């Protein structure tokens, strides 16, 4: 039994709510008196429900499209969540590996310029003048630092080697200024600073190891303010041996920022020297002595 086209669309209008209230009432009245029409309506309704398969199929296709279009960072769900998690872990692992690799690299040999204060390579040939004998022994290849009349931080004030072949005569300073960066590097290079790094325990410990590696990476990158923040966070954890190491690293970071951070440096050194059991108590005292020379 097939309805004609007019009846079919009339039933469709009824089932899909496209009739006015009056039309609807009239149609229902008609159905009540026509069993054949009522059967057609019921069958058509069943077919419409069956055809929901098509609507569902269409929406599934569209959802797959939307899913592919979604930026990964804004879809933290389901498989995307998993992908994000995986990516986060991968990035974290790469950072740790990179920091670890960097940290395990052989330290500079004495006599080489520390990384933190490498001067730019001159474009022209270096001058032929001899280095004055009064230059500090700890920095044989470093550019000379001097007092800072411009107000810039000391590590920014580097006397570049003259580019001409007839440089003005270099007058030896009466007393070499304290080269804080060299001093910091010198103390940093000492092996016992790294002792205990292999001690890894709980999740908290592992987390601190990661933070510590990243903090040292910041220090090496001369991002001193960020390094200070990172070391302070580790120091505040109070967990040993990370906290003591962070205290010491903090002191050496401040040393790089001297004389601007002299107050902070003195405070940290006092904190360390006031605790006889501090891992770096002796080192801090030695540094204090060197600074007072």
């Amino acid at each position: 039994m097939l309805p004609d086209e007019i009846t079919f669309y009339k039933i469709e209008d009824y089932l899909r709510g496209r009739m006015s209230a009056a039309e609807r009432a009239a149609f229902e009245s008609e159905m009540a008196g026509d069993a054949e029409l009522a059967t057609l309506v019921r069958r058509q309704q069943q077919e419409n429900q069956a055809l929901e398969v098509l609507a569902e199929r269409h929406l599934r296709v569209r959802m797959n499209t939307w899913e592919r279009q979604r930026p990964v960072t804004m879809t933290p769900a389901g498989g995307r969540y998993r992908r994000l998690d995986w990516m986060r872990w991968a990035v974290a692992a790469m950072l740790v590996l990179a920091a670890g690799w960097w940290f395990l690299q052989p330290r500079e040999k004495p006599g080489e310029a520390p990384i933190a204060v490498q001067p730019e390579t001159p474009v022209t040939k270096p001058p032929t003048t001899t280095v004055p004998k009064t230059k500090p022994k700890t920095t044989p290849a470093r550019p000379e630092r001097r007092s800072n009349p411009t107000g810039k931080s000391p590590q920014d004030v580097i006397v570049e080697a003259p580019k001409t072949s007839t440089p003005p005569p270099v007058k030896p300073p009466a007393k070499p200024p304290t080269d804080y960066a060299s001093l910091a590097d010198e103390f940093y290079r000492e092996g016992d600073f790294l002792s205990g790094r292999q001690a890894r325990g709980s999740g908290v410990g592992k987390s601190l190891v990661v933070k510590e590696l990243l903090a040292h990476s910041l220090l090496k990158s001369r991002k001193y303010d960020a390094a200070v923040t990172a070391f302070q966070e580790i120091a505040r954890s109070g967990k040993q041996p990370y906290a003591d190491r962070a205290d010491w690293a903090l002191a050496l970071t401040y040393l790089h920022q001297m004389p601007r951070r002299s107050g902070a440096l003195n405070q940290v050194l006092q904190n360390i020297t006031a605790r006889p059991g501090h891992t770096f108590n002796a080192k801090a005292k030695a540094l204090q002595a060197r600074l007072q020379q």
Partner: protein
Amino acid sequence: MTDTNTQNQAWTDEALVQAIRSGGPQREVALQTMYEKPGLRETVIRLVLDYGGQRDDALDVFQETLLLFDRNLREGRFEGRSTLATYFVGIAKWRWLALRRQQGRMTELSPGDYDGQVESPEHEVLRAEHRDWLEKALGQIGERCRQLLQLYQLDYSMEEITKTMHYANADVAKKEAYRCRMRFRELLEDYPAWKDLLNLT
């Protein structure tokens, strides 16, 4: 059928309901808006995880929920007693608990788990148990007829169907839709299960 940027349009619940109920291209845009609604997906994921599911389950439930949400709205089951987002999450919860029950992992399930009527049993039966032969019947009517019936089912107007499927005019599209529908009906008659279903209901 267009990938409209749903972020450019501010949608109220009322507008979303209206767009989904009226069907056609606006329905798709409205559904995409729901699909990308900030926080909705995350809420469903948390819900599934809280009820013992995994992340893979959560995305499946999220998509199944949108299917139910769409169907419920088009069939007038949303009663407006809550916001659409709450309604959506309610469906998700109902759906996940139903799945858990089917898997024998949980028996507690109440129709009141979401705001609105539960899907009718015959609809559920049609959708799940008879899906195979429905798909076969749809496979026999041909791709063009299937596409036409799909658009018609999604309440595209005859003008929109004409434009989408390049018919000469709306009357031609209407005649073709009728012809395809009758062809589908004849194919359904070949399935005893369909006849049984008609006699039962």
